[in-house]
């Protein structure tokens, strides 16, 4: 493992904390990620099936909260930034390449299927839990939101609970 290439985790955490603090000070809100997926999904449904979007409660609520412009959302802009920032970082540290990362013990097919299932569960869970690791757990922890911290413990606790059953995917 070539870990020396990565930043010291405490330093990275400290910088991330300062960024989060600055974000809260400037914008009054924290960081996020899954909300951008939601914006994208609502925008797609509105384009593909406008009548469904105007009828089904989930989309209707979201559209009315966003002046019928689901992509004009803070998190959409933030996630575009994440893509740019991560790309720059990969470029600087020479980590840009197309790879399917997996444990040598599993096939590519297994990795693809588990990535999709994992994403599906995370996407679903983040909607139910009103935020993901960034929006609920990290940002919620910073403002000491009870709900955010419960979600954080549930995410990490849940992952530890289920980790044993999926160990063959990783180790």
């Amino acid at each position, binding site marked *: 493992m070539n870990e*020396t290439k990565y930043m*010291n985790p405490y330093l990275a*955490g*400290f910088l*991330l*904390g300062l*960024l989060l603090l600055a974000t*809260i*000070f*400037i*914008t*009054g809100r*924290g*960081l*996020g*990620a899954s909300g951008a*997926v*939601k914006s994208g*999904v609502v925008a797609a449904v509105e384009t593909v099936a406008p009548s469904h979007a105007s009828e*089904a409660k*989930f989309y209707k609520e979201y559209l009315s909260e966003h002046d019928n412009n689901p992509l004009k959302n*803070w998190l959409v802009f933030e996630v575009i*930034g*994440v*893509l740019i*920032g*991560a790309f*720059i*970082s*990969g470029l600087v540290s020479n980590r*840009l390449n*197309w790879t399917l*990362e997996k444990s040598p013990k599993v096939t590519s097919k297994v990795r693809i299927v588990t990535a999709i*299932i*994992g*994403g*599906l*569960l*995370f*996407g*679903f*869970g983040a909607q139910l*839990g*009103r935020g*993901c*690791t960034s*929006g609920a*757990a990290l940002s919620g*922890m910073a403002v*000491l*939101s009870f*709900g955010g911290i*419960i*979600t954080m*413990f*549930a995410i990490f606790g849940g992952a530890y*609970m289920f*980790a044993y059953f999926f*160990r063959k*995917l990783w180790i």
Partner: protein
Amino acid sequence: MGPLVPDVIGNELNFVVALFVGIAFGYILEQAGFSTSKKLVGLFYGYDFTVLRVFFTAGITAMIGLVIFAFLGLIDLNLIYVNPTFLYSALVGGFIMGLGFVIGGFCPGTSFCAAAIGKIDAIYFIGGSVIGVLLFGELYPMLYGLYTAENWGLVTVYDLLGTSHAVVAFSFAIMAAGAFWFTRWVELRVNNGATSKEHPLKLYYAVVSILFVMGLSAFLMPSKQNAVLDKANNPEEINSVRLNYITSDELAFRLMDNDNNLQIIDFRPIKEFSEMSLPRSIPMKFKELFGKDALKTIAVKKKLTVFVAADEKDEKKASVIASELGFENVRVLQGGMAAFKSQILNYQAPPEMKTQQEKDTARFRAKASIEVAELIKNNKKAPIEKKKSKRIIGGC
């Protein structure tokens, strides 16, 4: 005073801020190694606790930073987004996310980060999360009960425990330090001592010590708000505060004159305010003087701000706070609302008037008692809407 949105930074500019915040976020995550699923799930199998280190250091840094900002009066915590607590959906949603984490190897933020540098598994993960959101959207009516059950509102841990913000933040910092030590120990065992040399940097120790001292001072010393409130409850301070009075007659005159620059801040209990309030007045509690709304209302140059309370004692208390906060151009109603009532609203002319001045005053007050009562009555029909900054909506 923060947050800077929407007053200093407009809502449109905020999207530009979002882009730059995102760039920094993505850069830091990638530099920390969050673009590889193997590293991310490491903490669940004990071979790599990078995620835990980065995550908790970030959370604690921001948490203590907010304690310090609030302590210095730099941010109005009532305006920042606090994730609402819906107990069951937070727990069930969290467990589902945890399951997704060990199966998929990413979380949404890190999957974007990994996809940006070409990780194909991350792109599939994002595809999966799109399906997950879509599935939730379609099942939303069915899940609505679970989604909205046990709504505790915007509750913080320190509200819930009834302790101070700083105490909770420090407890979390100590918990995190314990977790760092313990996971280091686990990691060494799992990797048979051949683990990476990721000791905290010396710089990090230095910065943490500074923050710790600053935080400790926030913990030990009363915050600016509490210090000022203590001062406002000190009889000596109350009696020595310099007051700029406005008489009942002048206030009545300005009300009748429909003076646009006049604004009255009423510190009486809200119940009394709703029973009877003067035109151009807004209710306020002493504590609200520290908020961003008070700053926006009182620190306006051309306005004439008048503090009103039941009696002068409460007006003096508010004046102590206002002068500590640097508010100028504040006048207080002489004798408080009690005097205004006896001199204007319920005015009874004295049986004997000798001088011309006494007669003029009596004539004015007799006229004012009718006109101001009329103004109060009309005002009740059309209450001035209280300018109140809304809490920012955030979250995912």
